[in-house]
């Protein structure tokens, strides 16, 4: 084999190795790519406004409108109402919450039997929490039992809730988690989502989804290339590529 021929063979070997391994992108090259990305301030402002509005930071949203000139994608007054409902559930005033939801839009509960059931269930939980056992029993029979007959999953949840009555010391009972703050928060966030949906607004802010998308996009690119990653979202620090 000639020298040239040998060199060619080696060269083609090299090409093959390169093709099978991942593309390596240096920090310098990557930063150039990052700089070429066009991100619009207006869009970032919208993203931030969307977060404030969806998470219910009504005063901050109002201030942000003034300071940045960004228009919220929902009537800010409705946030106040939504947050009042959420707060009522969180603090255990379920009757009050139901009334407020109906003031906002009676269709919300009419069209969400599951949500309505969960609110009623929460109401019973609050009665038990406050030691109003007789009322709780009456409420279960009159309001909850008929709904349990309509729906198997309601029935199971009803049974679980009624079981609370059987324990004198609820802190030691297997269904005691119903009395946790987390149960209130769960119901509250369900109401919150239903109100947002009724206002044709997404029930979750967009920012967390985009952050998850970033995690996913980086994992996907890992299969094809070695490049500077951001491993810590909070600091947004660009790491050196690990070759």
């Amino acid at each position, binding site marked *: 084999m000639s020298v040239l021929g040998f060199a060619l063979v080696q060269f083609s070997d090299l090409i093959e190795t390169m093709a099978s391994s991942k593309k390596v992108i240096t920090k310098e090259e990557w930063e150039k*790519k990052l700089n070429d990305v066009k991100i619009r301030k207006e*869009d970032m402002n919208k993203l931030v406004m969307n977060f404030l509005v969806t998470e219910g930071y009504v005063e*901050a949203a109002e201030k942000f409108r003034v300071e940045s*000139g960004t228009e919220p994608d929902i009537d800010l007054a409705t946030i106040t109402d939504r947050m009042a409902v959420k707060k009522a559930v969180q603090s255990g005033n379920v009757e009050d919450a139901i009334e407020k939801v109906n003031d906002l839009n009676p269709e919300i509960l009419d069209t969400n039997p599951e949500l309505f059931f969960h609110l009623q269930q929460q109401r019973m939980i609050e009665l038990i929490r406050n030691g109003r056992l007789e009322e709780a029993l009456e409420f279960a029979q009159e309001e909850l039992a008929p709904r349990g007959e309509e729906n198997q999953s309601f029935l199971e949840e009803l049974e679980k809730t009624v079981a609370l009555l059987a324990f004198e010391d609820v802190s030691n009972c297997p269904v005691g988690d119903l009395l946790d703050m987390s149960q209130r928060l769960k119901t509250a966030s369900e109401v919150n989502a239903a109100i947002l*949906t009724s206002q*044709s607004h997404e029930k979750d802010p967009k920012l967390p989804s*985009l952050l998850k998308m970033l995690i996913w996009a980086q994992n996907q690119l890992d299969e094809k290339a070695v*490049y500077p990653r*951001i491993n810590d979202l909070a600091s947004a620090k660009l790491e050196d590529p690990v070759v």
Partner: protein
Amino acid sequence: MVNGQQVSTGGDPVDLFRLASWCRSGPEWDRMVSEIEWEDEPTHLNTMNSSGGFNVVSVDKLSVSYPGTRSHGHDVGAVQANCAAPTRRLMYYFEMTVKNAGQKGRVAIGFTPPGVKMCRQPGWEENSCGYHGDDGMIYRGQGKGESFGPTFTSGDTVGAGINYASQEFFFTKNGKLVGTVNKHVKGPLFPTIAVHSQNEELTVNFGKHPFLFNFEAYVLEERTKHQTTIEKSTLPVNVSHWIVRSYLLHYGYEDTLNSFDIASKNSLQPAPVAQENSIEHCEAYALNRRKILRQLIRNGEIDSAFSKLQGWYPQTVQNETSTLCFLLRAQKFIEHIRVGELEAAVKYARAQLAKFFSVKLLENLLQNCIALLAYDQPAESCVGYLLDANQRELVADAVNAAVLSTDPAAKDRQGGVSSHLERLLRQLTACSVERRSLTSDQGETFHLHQALRAAGKRPMLG
């Protein structure tokens, strides 16, 4: 980032073109958005690229028939679309209707590469794929077919599509999904239909008419599936909260920040890990002053902003021909125009703006500013974008960046010129663009602008 930025503007702390607010609803942005979205789409059949195996039936070049009586293996009348299937999307799809299955019903639908022999059925040649009517089989570049779905004949509508995310072909019959097969081909693919026996006639639909198959729902289903996968990853506790907070800090939206902090204290937000990072105190630098400067500029009080800046951070406006000085001077000029003080505007331009004509980088913007003088209704003109609130925001952001650059701690800060949020979004976009370029330019990429618009106000499914 900090270094690169300073090199490009010769030590100027403000790189105008690097500010997110530089991208705005001006002509430049509109051009960019249309470039992102633009891609050639098949509209008709390329009847010029023919083996002579088909007749063109209609002037719209959407229908063909088989002319002869021959039916040897090299007498097929295959015909491609006028261009390859677009790739910069999640999926592509088209349909054809069998008007007449002719003598033997050897009609087919599929995809073929450029330069393929047009006298052969899609799927018979390498790098092609076809669903055949007479046997219901799928052909993928080998002589032999694989059993796939039902046969199709006169009156049936069949469809062929590419799913770029899953790298699959999919086929439909009469509005129902028949199945999917692995896409083994890397390069461009042309939508292709073929006839191969007497009297066969086909009409293709590239989307001008509604498809029989609910393609939109299929795309949505794929998107939802995709979204579900993405949503599975977990985020550090409250990370969104802290990214928003640091954004407010970065841009000096102090009032918003205060309200946000008060409200979050009440809603039980535990302290995140992020606090240990430098987010907090380095971006709280000069917060109140940055807020005041921003307010003044947003109100059009440029003189006050300028003199405050001179008093607080003289180093930022020392160089009379710096980008920052230019932006402030130009804004002052724009404010004159806004209130119709044309004479004052001309006088001001002669005294303060003329000197910037020697700065190459700013020439374009300067010319646009001066052009405002030429219009009776400047706000309606092509340079009217200079009069909207976003231009003030741009100036305010430039001032903000200049003030931040005076922070002695700024030098150690990575990418200190942009907010965390911006850096994360840049990373997300760059990753998706890079991945596509390594995947034969197939599939969607992330663009914040589109993501915000697409999600819009549509309620979430389910």
